[in-house]
């Protein structure tokens, strides 16, 4: 066994068709998972930056009406801005119609929950694919390995003298499938955990923001409720 016959490209080219298909599937899965990893990483980083910017502008003491008017109505926003926009629009629409603060707050909360749910769906998009690659590719690679070892034993049964040298290339090329499965699965697992953690933290921030905004509206309604009842 010299280097040439045991090198990885040589082993891949000499593998059986099933093992080669498995390897191809794993390579495609790995590439797609890396695409998802990069795309989600960039998207989550941007969402976090935008959230930080919005939070800064929100708590800078600016008037909420002004803040709301700065956002164009036909331009859909994401993240905390989207939640704020949905809640404040609902608040503005309900305020002229009812005097009941609880109804208004209930409507605002519902619309904000819908917006939050949409944000969650947007942030965790494609992460399921990453989870699928992470969990399935070791099994796919193992299937390729088992198939290759079956082939190696079949060829071993035909030889007269079973030495390590006759089995070694077969087992090596079979094990490459498992290696590729793990190669696809390990980054997918790591980045799935990291990205889903980032997304859930961001969603938690959105939730916090929604509660705080709800609290502000509630405070305003309490003041307004008190005024008409008092007058």
């Amino acid at each position, binding site marked *: 066994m010299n280097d040439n016959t045991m090198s990885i490209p040589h082993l891949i080219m000499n593998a059986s068709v099933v093992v080669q298909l498995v390897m191809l599937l794993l390579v495609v899965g790995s*590439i797609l998972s890396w*695409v998802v*990893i990069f795309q989600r990483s960039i998207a989550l980083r941007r969402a976090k930056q935008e959230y930080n910017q919005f939070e800064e*502008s929100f708590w800078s003491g600016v008037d909420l009406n002004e803040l709301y008017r700065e956002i164009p109505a036909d331009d859909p926003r*994401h993240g905390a801005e989207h939640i704020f926009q949905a809640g404040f629009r609902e608040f503005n629409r309900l305020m002229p119609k009812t005097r009941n603060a609880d109804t208004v707050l209930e409507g605002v909360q519902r619309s904000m929950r819908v917006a939050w749910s949409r944000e969650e769906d947007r942030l965790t998009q494609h992460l399921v694919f990453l989870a699928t690659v992470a969990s399935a590719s070791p099994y796919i690679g193992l299937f390729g390995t088992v198939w290759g070892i079956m082939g190696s034993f079949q060829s071993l049964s035909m030889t007269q003298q079973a030495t390590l040298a006759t089995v070694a290339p077969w087992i090596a090329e079979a094990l490459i499938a498992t290696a590729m499965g793990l190669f696809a699965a390990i980054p997918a697992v790591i980045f799935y955990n990291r990205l889903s953690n980032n997304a859930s933290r961001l969603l938690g921030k959105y939730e916090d923001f929604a509660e705080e905004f709800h609290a502000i509206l509630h405070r305003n309604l309490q003041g307004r409720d008190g005024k008409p009842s008092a007058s």
Partner: protein
Amino acid sequence: MVKGKTQIVADAPRDPQDVGYTLPVILAVAVHLAIIIFSLVNWPSHSVEPDSSSIVQATFVSTETFTDQAQQVTEQQAAMNSATEPVEEPQVSAPEVAEPEPEPEPQQDNQAQQQAAEEAARQAAQAEAEALAEAQAAAEADAQRRAVEAERQAQEQAAQAQAREAEAEAQRQREAEAQRAREQAEAEAEAQREAEAQRAKEQAEAEAKREAEAAAEREREAQEQREAEAEAERQREAEAAKAREEAAAQARREAEAEAQREREAAAEREREAEAQRQREAEAERQRKAAAEAAEAAMQRQLAGEAEAAANAQQAQQAANSFINIVRRAVEQAWLIPPGASNSLNATIQIRLGPSGELLAASVATSSGDSAFDRSAIQAVEQAAPFSELRDLPADQQRNLRQINLRFTPGDVR
């Protein structure tokens, strides 16, 4: 917040949080290419690693290692074929153990060559001596032949002389006979005359007639005598002429014989020269044949050596494979005691039975750590029946009945 506002406004037409897929795809492919290139570039250093990371380094020490003997022999042969100069000392390129085995063979070759040359020289000398002896023998035979010829000629001359004597004798006899005949005739004539005279006296009448008859008779007889004498004279003359003729013929014959002898001598010389040339050619041929035979013998010897070397090679390979099997088995069975340092080194001597069973395992060179030695012996005992010994040829089996194994823990615990 003016800055943030402008940014938001600028980004407004497209979704700021919707990241496109082209950049991630490029990045992902780049990552994979980088990994593949890294694995390919790093591969050679990976392939070196397994050698150093073998757990056990039990090495076989006692028997010789395999060398490229056959190749050397063929090289020698090629050298011999190209020029019959003696081969230079082969460079033993065995890396680990410089074994003394391949060196004597070239010396043998040289010796064989020298022997062959000597033999050829000896044969040439012998052939020359033979040629000389042959020439001498030829000369002797020649001399003999000449002597014989001379004798023959002498005999011939003697015979001729005898013949001449015999002729002379015959002539003398013939003359004597003629004389006798004449005397007789005379005596008869006398007697007749006496008788006639008596009868004439007795018979007168018839006497005259008888006398006339007798005269006629006498005349006739005288005539006869004259005739006989003339005849004898003629015969003598003829005899003398013949003798002269014979002498001339003799001289002629002798001259002829002399010329013949000269011719024969010339022919003989030529023949001798021819024979000498042939003998020389023969000797040359014999020398050549001897040299060729020596060459062929040398070639055969070399071929035999090459074959023997090839056989030895095969046997050596078989022995090496058996040693490898033993080493693997022992390595697998060896449990290195904890705390054994890498510098420990023990040599275990193993004696095997004819079917590969373990007869004895003893410590040949102790490592100084008794636990380590014990573990090595236990490893040998665990791996013990080396039944592959039976697959080897018998002479190899004898060689491999006793094996030394050196145990050194590798760099891996």
